């Protein structure tokens, strides 16, 4: 019986992983232009970005200057539930990211349009931005962006009572 339970758990965890992966942001392939500029495409051109996901895990990836943080999430296949629903068109707030004060100041000006959508984000802070509007530059090397909870965790008691 223990073996069955173990196997069942193993399979179900795998299935959940499968389900999570399959439900992760997947996009139709779009034309992506590489923002090379005048610099050769060397690996030291890349910008390191650290994401803190909703479980508190730190995920370190690299992106190219000119990529938006949403581009990075997509290109690196990062599994943030529901991230970037409107595909970077400032029609939602699901790419909401939170930065520390110092990094926030480096991110450049925010437009009214971005702020209008950011205003709708759950858990809005003074150092929040929308990932689709932040473009990487070398000066942002090593940045840390936290992915906040998208909704209040309404999980109550285990028996489901309100």
């Amino acid at each position: 019986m223990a073996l069955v339970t173990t196997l069942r758990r193993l399979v179900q965890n795998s299935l959940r992983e499968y389900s999570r992966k399959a439900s992760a942001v997947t996009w139709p392939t779009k034309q992506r232009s590489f923002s090379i500029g005048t610099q050769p495409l060397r690996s030291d051109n890349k910008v390191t970005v650290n994401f803190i996901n909703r479980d508190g895990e730190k995920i370190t990836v690299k992106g190219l200057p000119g990529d938006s943080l949403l581009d990075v999430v997509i290109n690196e296949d990062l599994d943030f539930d529901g991230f970037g629903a409107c595909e970077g068109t400032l029609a939602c707030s699901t790419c909401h990211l939170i930065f520390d004060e110092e990094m926030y100041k480096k991110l450049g000006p925010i437009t009214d349009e971005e702020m209008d959508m950011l205003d709708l984000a759950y858990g809005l802070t003074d150092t929040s931005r929308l990932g689709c509007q932040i473009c990487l530059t070398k000066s942002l090397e090593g940045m840390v962006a936290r992915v906040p909870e998208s909704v209040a965790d309404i999980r109550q008691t285990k028996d489901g009572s309100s």
Partner: protein
Amino acid sequence: VLIYTPALLFCCNSNELDVNLSRVFAGGCGKASLSSCSPKVCIVGSGPAGFYTAQHLIKVDIYERLPVPFGLVRFGVAPDHPEVKNVINTFTQTAKHSRCSFYGNVNVGKNVSITELQQAYHAVVLSYGAEGNRSMGVPGEDLAGVYSAKDFVGWYNGLPSCRELSPDLSCETAVILGQGNVALDVARILLSPIDILKKTDITQPTLEALAESQVRRVLIVGRRGPIQIACTIKELREMVNLPDTRPDMVAADFDGVKEALKDLPRPRKRLTELMLKTALEVPGEKEQERRSKASRTWGFRFFRSPVEVLAEPGHSRIAGIRLAINKLEGSGDGAQAVLTGEVEDVPCGLVVSSIGYKSLPIDPSVPFDSRKAIVPNTMGRVKQAAGLYCSGWLKTGPTGVIATTMNNSFDTARSILEDMDSGTLDMSAAKPGSQSISALLEKRGVKPVTFSDWEKIDNVEMKRGESRGKPREKLLTVEEMLHVAWT
């Protein structure tokens, strides 16, 4: 797409998934049958709630009443907000994945009952949204010229059941009750220059009606004050910037608002500031000129509740609307509108009531809270109904944008997976799933529309739109849709 898992499964095809599962269990426990490991789940409704719930389930069938999927993304989101509809891309990927099967043209509650679905599936998720609307509950509501926003929006978005709405746009003034984003959508569609609208997927009959429209003034009426307004800043900004229009507000409505600004959280503060600026600030020369040339006006009217729709004497057409004048008790979100006893009559020829959608019960076997108009549930688990779940507006009530519904649906899916894992959801008995439902439907002469059938409709619509410079020209009747689907 190949999905690799640490252990035993190297496929994304759901049949192969079942086969591998049986191999595991045959090896591990001998007696365990294949079907006891294969959970069967179905979802009723293919709007955002349905699809976002599906995205977190391993294998799922989606049943949809119309031949076309996507619910309010297709029929609710305004034609001039195409970016909001980008979620269709992720839904399409989900639908085309082998682990998801779409069955359109199936009316759950009529062609097949919830009980029958529960016999075929371990879990049934109700995600059919809110197709009704709250009524004002005032005399004259049934007069010609009075429409619910739900129907008006359905009309300009090509919902088959709203095709015959044919609203009379031959009047100068339209009054919209309600000040949420849907109310602003209606105002914007009534006042937008045709040149802008004709490049959207708004329906052709609507475009023709709007081209002839005499509506020049739209009042958007709310019970409470500016600080309680329900719309969001993006939509307000669109009104402020709407070409060929100028704002027409009542300055007195904004007494005390400036003073209250400092205590407001940023989103509310910015929204209120924009309203104040639009209503009270003396515009610069350029803006002054723009306003003087504008041929159309729009404005908010606050502290007003409808008490009666007035008819033209001796006719059953609308001549105006009687509004009760309110005052506010309390402040902020919790402020209440209280009658003062005074009333005001506003002449108008079109009234659109935008005070909320409302869910309807689908099947007598499903618990329904008629006061809140939702299916009673705890975290998506329908109360007193094992194996029944709900997501989207049916679960929480008809407010919120697509992202709200997304989170809500992910939560329901999580509840289902938890219940499967813990054994709360009884999966000991094998269930036949779509096989038995398909057989039932066939017996009853109901032919489902598959997702590839929908893609034929999709292609025809896009092709028709191309020649008109529109993203698509929607098919407007179920008959046309089925004809294209099955030819």
